[in-house]
């Protein structure tokens, strides 16, 4: 073929560039995320009270949207009490409500976020709880 060597070298470079992210992240990227909910604060609660603000499946899928809407209600309207689907009331706050139970950001929040390669900038401002280095 015409310009054969240039094409082959180009193809090799192309394949290299495309597969580079997968090569460099290796096993880390394919490990299934395993968010841990066994923080001391959660373990202190009796077993039947270990519920999040909303059901697990709901939080898994919609926590981003919930937090966005919480943010607008608190910051822009000044209303700080949330009544969940079961009628229980919570103070709307990432730092002081969510992170109080989920005090293990690196073993909980980061698990799925790293897997999905997203880096939400919440904790640039909202102070993440101190974690013991284990």
């Amino acid at each position, binding site marked *: 073929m015409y310009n054969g060597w240039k094409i082959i070298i180009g193809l090799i470079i192309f394949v290299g560039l495309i597969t580079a992210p997968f090569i460099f992240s290796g096993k880390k990227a394919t490990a299934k995320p395993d968010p841990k909910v066994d923080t001391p604060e959660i373990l202190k609660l009796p077993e039947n009270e270990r519920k999040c603000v909303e059901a697990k499946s709901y939080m898994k899928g919609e926590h981003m949207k919930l937090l966005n809407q919480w*943010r607008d*209600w608190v*910051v*822009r*309207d000044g209303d700080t009490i949330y*009544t969940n689907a079961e009628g229980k009331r919570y103070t709307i706050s990432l*730092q002081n409500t969510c992170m109080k139970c989920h005090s293990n950001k690196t073993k909980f929040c980061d698990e799925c976020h790293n897997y999905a390669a997203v880096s939400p*900038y919440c904790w640039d401002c909202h102070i993440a709880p101190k974690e013991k280095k284990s």
Partner: protein
Amino acid sequence: MSMDRKEFLKIAGISTILGIGGTSVVNSLRNLVEASQISPNPEALTGKRWGFVVDMSKFNTDEDYQRCIEACDKVHNVPHINNPKHEIKWIWKETYEHAFPGQGTEDKYLSEKIKHMPFLVLCNHCDNPPCVRVCPTKATFKRKDGIVMMDMHRCIGCRFCMAACPYGARSFNWRDPRPFIKEENENREFPTRTKGVVEKCTLCYERLAKGLKPACVEASKGGLIFGDLDDPNSEVRKVLSSHYSFRRKPELGTRPSVYYIF
């Protein structure tokens, strides 16, 4: 059917725009949280126009000023940056001749004591705020209780509000503030800010929501009187009706809510 490349690209482009645009419109209209699920804290302090009276008779020693400034800085994780170009200040001291330049400028016969008297200055939470008028994203906005609020999530850091504020009340995060917050002073119940957003006094909205007075007011031992200017029976109104009071640059029409009495 046959079409040429130009027409194909046109149809592809328009379908993409309609597709993406349509889905985002539908998505944004779908509300997750019902309005009925959100309510204010019943203990919260409510008012129509929060304001301050700064009673200068109660500020005599340096400690009187520092107490208020440090209370605010601590509760809100205000960083202490040495470079004066990058400093962040929410409430601070300024002498009379600089805080009230219309009064003090080039007045040779003004009492020296008054000229150099320190005054606590902060955001005036104006009733007609020029900063709110210019913000292109409503990141700074006026709440219904009168507080000129900051939405740090929305601020794009254009600093138009800083140009508009006639009182120099606003600070910009020229760099990441976190290295400048001493760990022992950190308030873990309140966020820090990040580089690239503007910040200022927000009248302790988070304390008002829990029924607490602003941090500086509590630390001032009566030097700062806080209340609803719209309520004729509030303490601030009573003080204002019985004293001569003045505000910073009232001729600009901003209607500031921070009054000073002697």
